């Protein structure tokens, strides 16, 4: 048995002329909690749907639990819990109807787990899904996804639209559920706090291209911030590989860099700065800088704020 829960090779998907996922290679270790990061429209949902065999890739292939995604049998699907984006559920169903309906399909249905997740979200079993708040609905969906005790749990932006309290509840439920079994969880989000709290591995999608796949610590250590202090105005920057952001304020030049090599350090030192300080950076800042920078000419124009902050690059 492979020690990877998900493997994807050269997954590519176009919608019309729009390239949504491009040449994506991914491997998710069994038992990991895998955060799938990216901005809105970066291709997270499309990737997950291709991995689950719910969408055909333009080309490329993937394996889930060692089986080809294109033809997952019902038995394999029983081992995969999937919480789709937007918490879909039949609105007319009461909680107990949803439980009765869903439990029919899964031989390993854990009713105790279902009830405990519902209790965590304080969901009344007699409420109809359409009358629930977003948090309650998310709780119901999560309960329905967790109760079959899947080996692989795929959660597509599970915290979308939730207030901080509900989001915290959702994440705690996930932790509660995962730590009880050797279960792989892959969940997508664009909220760093969620990822930081939950994930041990991350993958970062940037406009259809996978840019990073590593542990959280590695990501944090690879993105570094330097402040260069000059005697006067900072000079014009030479091309630097790995530079994702530069902000010039007075005599200071703040540089955000990825994979800082000795060459880059030499280049920095060659700028004639009086001082070069490495400044600690939060994961959120690292992530925003990582995805906010624009380096390729064919990439869509970033938002005005990011354009301003990345002005030093051009």
């Amino acid at each position, binding site marked *: 048995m*492979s020690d*990877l829960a998900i*493997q*994807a*090779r*050269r997954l*590519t998907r*176009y919608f*019309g*002329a729009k*390239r949504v996922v*491009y*040449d*994506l*290679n*991914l*491997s998710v*270790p069994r038992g990991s909690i895998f955060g799938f990061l990216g901005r809105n429209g970066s291709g997270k949902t499309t990737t997950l*749907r291709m991995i*689950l065999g*719910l*969408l*055909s890739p*333009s*080309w490329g292939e993937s*394996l889930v639990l060692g*089986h*080809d995604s294109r033809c997952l049998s*019902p038995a394999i*699907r*029983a081992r*995969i819990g*999937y919480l*789709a*984006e*937007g918490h*879909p559920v*039949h609105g*007319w169903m009461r909680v107990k109807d949803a439980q009765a*309906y869903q439990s*029919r*399909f899964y031989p390993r249905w854990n009713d105790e787990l279902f009830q405990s997740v519902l209790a965590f979200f304080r969901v009344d079993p007699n409420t109809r899904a359409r009358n629930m708040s977003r948090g309650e609905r998310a709780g119901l969906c999560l309960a329905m996804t967790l109760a079959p005790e899947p080996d692989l749990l795929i959660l*597509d932006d599970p915290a979308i639209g939730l207030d901080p309290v509900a989001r915290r509840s959702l994440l705690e439920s996930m932790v509660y559920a995962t730590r009880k079994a050797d279960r792989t969880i892959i969940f997508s989000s664009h909220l760093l706090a969620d990822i930081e709290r939950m994930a041990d591995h991350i993958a*970062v999608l940037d406009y259809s*291209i996978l*840019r*990073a*796949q*590593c*542990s959280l610590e*590695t*990501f944090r250590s*690879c993105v570094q911030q330097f402040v260069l202090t000059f005697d006067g105005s900072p000079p014009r920057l030479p091309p630097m590989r*790995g*530079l*994702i952001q530069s902000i010039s304020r007075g005599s200071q030049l703040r540089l955000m860099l*990825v*994979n800082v090599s000795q060459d880059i350090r030499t280049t920095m030192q060659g700028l004639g700065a009086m001082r070069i300080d490495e400044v600690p950076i939060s994961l959120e800042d690292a992530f925003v800088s*990582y995805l906010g920078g624009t*380096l390729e000419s064919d990439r869509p124009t970033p938002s005005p704020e990011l354009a301003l902050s990345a002005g030093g690059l051009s």
Partner: protein
Amino acid sequence: MIGIFTRELRENLKWALLVFAALLVMIVRDLREPEPMILFQLAQHYTLWMAPIAGILLGVVQLVFETRPDNWSFVVHRPVSRGRIFAAKCAAGLLLLYAALTLPCLVAGIWASRPGNLGVPYQGRMMLPMLADVLNAGSYYFAGMVLTLRRARWFGTRLLPAGLALASSFLITMFIAQFWLSVLVILCVQLIGALAAWGVFASNGASDDSWITRLALGAIIYPGALAVGIGLLGFSQAFISGGRWQYYQVDRHGDAVVVTQTIEHGERGWSFTDPAGNPLRQYEGMDLDDPANRDQFVSFNGHLVDPRSIPWPLDLMYTNAGYRFPNPGLEALRGGALPGVRLRFLAIYDIPQHLIELFDPVSRVQIGAIGPDGFSPAPTLPDRRFDGIPLNLSVQPRSRVLAFESIVYRLELDQRRVLPVFVAVADDPVFSAVEVGQGTNAKILVATHARLHVLSVDGQSSYSVPWEQDPNSCNFDVAQLPSNHHLLVRAFTNPGIAPPRTRMFEYSADGALVRRSDLPRLGSLGSSKKVESMAFGAIFPVAARMICPAWILDDLFDLRMEEFQMSFALVLWISAALCATATVLIGIRCGFGLWKTLGWSVLNLLLGPAGLVVMLGVNDWPSREKCAHCHRMRFVGRRDCPRCGAALAPAPRDGREIFEPADAFSSDEALQAVG
């Protein structure tokens, strides 16, 4: 599967109840003041259109949740195959649909079967038209599913999948006389619809890879595209405000008159000539809309026709026989007494019972029955029954004549009896009979295959003449001339017999043929019919032209394709060639490959512009981008560039990549094993 089935039932029950309640209210409202043939009318008035609406409604509401990809994922990502999910959905949907439509019809059927309710004998076949409509609702149900989930634009081809169901409705209501054949057509259409619906459901509306579901999708789109073309053509005719037409009338002396009718700016005018084209001054300025001029021309109110000689599908229009009509089950006898004598009962010819049955119109209870030997009050039945099936009653509903192949009776229903007036010889059976003229001049005309027999109303033979035209290839209008009471017979060649011609024969009181005239075929005036026929050629498929005779199209669409054969054929083939050329160009643009392009080109040469719509409907329009290697355009959905053969370039690296070796993709072998 049971879970999905019950959920679907629960989820869509409200829509089924809505359909049930609406249909029940309409039916019960009509049952309060019933006509004798109400069960046929209920089909015509309600189920014919309610069933399609209900089918589309159920199909749409059942899949509207799945139109969002996330919801669809929620529905299909479970340990059940998509096929079983779809089957459970359809089983629940069809059960609800058929129950909602059948139960109100059953209420009507049970009501009608109770004595004293209907006013005519209840026959099980009276339920068949409603049953056929209800069954056909399933065709619309699958069409509704496809048009809900298939990815298409509303102003493009989204609604076209309803085309096959629509074609099925037309077939079973207008062109098919047998119920079993209608059921067969409906089942075939539903099978195709179900395959197409499965294709779009399994792929969440995308073009499915399976050729059979794509073929089914094409098959349900094609009639829709063709119908849109014909509809647009008809719509364009609505803007033509004027025109000129010619037709024949016969004056009181039996002379043919060519009437040219003109409509210009809403004003109607007529001019009159003889068949040679010489103006007839006596009719100059005559207004044919004026009731005072009604008697200027002979009215042919008797028809002699052998329906078996009329080819399908026009035989149904001539005879009004089939499972959607009372005939061949029951036929009302409206002309069973002398003019001015009012019958105090309703007379019905009961075809299975071979009897005329009389019903009280108030109590709707049977009074008795009339057989060849006379009347028997209910509940007794006459000892002797009529022999065989009555001939073309529906063509002459007010005739006092009841004809069978071996014998013809004159009806005297006010006296509660029938009188035999003609007995056919064994080798020359009757095919039609009718009464013409009024009062003392009234005659009974009996048409056998060899001769036309003219009788007085009491059955005395006046004369008998051989046919001047073969009755197996002609149908006849008959009239009595007001001026001299001569018999005028106008013979038309049956549809499909070339060349079409019209002849008139005038017989004197002693049976002498006093005049025989050929009426030359009148050509179309102006260019509108020619343009119409040519425009029809532009949208009509070559394949259909090969199997469908021009006279059917002329009759169905009021065209002149036989007259403008060359123009029609020219436009037809130019259009087909353009379609094939466009297909080749589209095939190259879409990178179809040689055989696929060739196949579609031949198909669209045969299927015409509607085939082109189908091709665009079942194939994705591929986008292109610049190849990173040769910088020429390549298809985005393909791995290799068709120009340079280079594989898709790997994702570009910009120095930001963070990949840990431990997580790097390393199981190529496993993937290759699967691939």
